[in-house]
């Protein structure tokens, strides 16, 4: 049976899992960042999530975990991804605060508010070929499960799948934010590294919740 609430333990496992996956995909993410960026996204994400893993606090409070992750990302990633992922986890932490147990509704709201915070911070919308294009559909999918009375487990599966589809959908897009936007039309035909790492992070959550 999968859980129907998220615990601080699950969050810790999530971040550790994400760190592993991002490390394994360091070269891949950096390669994605070569033709349309500055070839560092994998390095940044590996460094950041390793630091986040190392900074995970003990205890039962999901908000404290998310906040520690945010602070580690902010102080270790740098680049555009650092503050943006930091903002994402800060927003999660804010929503998690006092929301125990963390059920599917709280999760859906958290993902929605987190993506909204990232949009505001980066002045970006969906369709601009950024991490938003993975994070936004993930939040939408999670909310849909919540509305249909689904479980946290189903919700995070749906979110991961939506994020992956969203990342793939960035390929033909014209970049309008981040470094890729400097390339104009030449940005088309490449998958956005940030959307890809977002999909990996959400897939890590789904896997952890599914006990994988």
């Amino acid at each position: 049976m999968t859980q129907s609430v998220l615990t601080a333990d699950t969050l810790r496992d999530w971040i550790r899992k994400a760190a592993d996956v991002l490390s394994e995909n360091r070269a891949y993410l950096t390669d994605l960042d070569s033709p349309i960026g500055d070839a560092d996204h994998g390095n940044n994400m590996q460094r950041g999530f390793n630091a986040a893993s190392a900074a995970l606090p003990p205890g039962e409070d999901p908000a404290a975990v998310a906040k520690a992750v945010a602070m580690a990302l902010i102080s270790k990633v740098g680049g555009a991804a650092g503050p943006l992922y930091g903002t994402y986890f800060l927003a999660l932490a804010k929503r998690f605060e006092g929301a125990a147990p963390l059920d599917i509704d709280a999760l859906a709201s958290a993902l929605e508010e987190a993506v909204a915070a990232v949009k505001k911070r980066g002045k970006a919308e969906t369709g601009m070929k950024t991490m938003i294009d993975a994070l936004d559909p993930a939040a939408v999918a999670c909310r849909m499960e919540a509305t249909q009375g689904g479980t946290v487990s189903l919700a995070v599966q749906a979110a991961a799948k939506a994020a992956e589809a969203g990342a793939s959908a960035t390929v033909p897009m014209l970049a309008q934010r981040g470094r890729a936007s400097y390339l104009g039309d030449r940005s088309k035909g490449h998958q956005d590294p940030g959307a890809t790492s977002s999909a990996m992070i959400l897939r890590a959550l789904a896997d952890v919740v599914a006990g994988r």
Partner: protein
Amino acid sequence: MKKLINNAEDVTVEQLHGFGLAHEDIEVHSDPTFVSAVDGAQDRVAVISGGGSGHEPLHGGFVGLGMLDAACPGQVFTSPTPDQMVAAGKRVAGDRGLLQIVKNYTGDVLNFQMAADMLREDGIEVRNIVIDDDVALKDSLYTAGRRGLGTTLIAEKVCGAAAREGYDLDRLAALCRKVNIFGKSMGMALTSCTTPQNGKPSFDLPEGEMEIGIGIHGEPGVARTKIKSADAVTEILANHILEDEAYTRALPEWDRAQQDWVDVEVKDITFQSGDQVIAIVNGMGGTPLSELYTVYAKLAEVAGRHGVKIIRNLVGNYITSLEMAGMSITLVKTDEEILRLYDAPVNTPALRWGC
């Protein structure tokens, strides 16, 4: 990859260690990383900057008397993190506040904003002024906007001198904004470059081809063309700069009244016949100095044709992309204030005169 390094994961640390040893007037701090001038800025406004490593001498090479009080280097081609600027700001700033000169890259802008927010909580008054002078990019609504290139260097020089003259924070921020709208740049690359972490070139640039309109992070430019003569390349860049129309965009600044970041509309100059400018012909790191002088000769000619007179110049490697071959051109219009401050004494590892 052929590099004089020991540990690819740690190059900036080992390089900064040597930098500190070589320059007695500069302190290198770690955890978090920043460099600062041994003399603080207690009795005047402090000026700091920073950005990814790999652009040396920018920014650390411009720390010292009459220029930056501190610089925060990130990983290679990666913006520094807010904790670096917070530590640097606390170290060098006194009661008169802190100006952060920020190049317009999403990462730099966001990290310096977060740093400003944190410093403000610690009671330090901070202004961030964003430099976005790269005329290769035309649009700001549907892109991350123009990048910060060589005008950054002039902003650091001029604002450093003004801080020494006693400008207060508002006046200094206004001056920095003026330098930004007075300056325009554009760059090109003959080769790519290799970050130590990756060990292979950031992009492919075959024999016979070049990139026009590059930034400084080993990323491709806005267009790829066949290699042209130095004169032809210089004509393209210089004409883009000299004929660039006034560019209007919104740049984020801290609004003290609203206690929030607001978008301030900023409008560039267009160069006019009769303008007197500071010119930089900047090497990207792997182009011999001698070749930059061929570019300078043509630049002076093209500027002259537009009635624009170069009254000061810097020819050399100032804002580099590791070992990339290529160059960028910057022209900054001067007025009495900018010229006086530019000519003021400066003593840093990479720029020195008047003392």
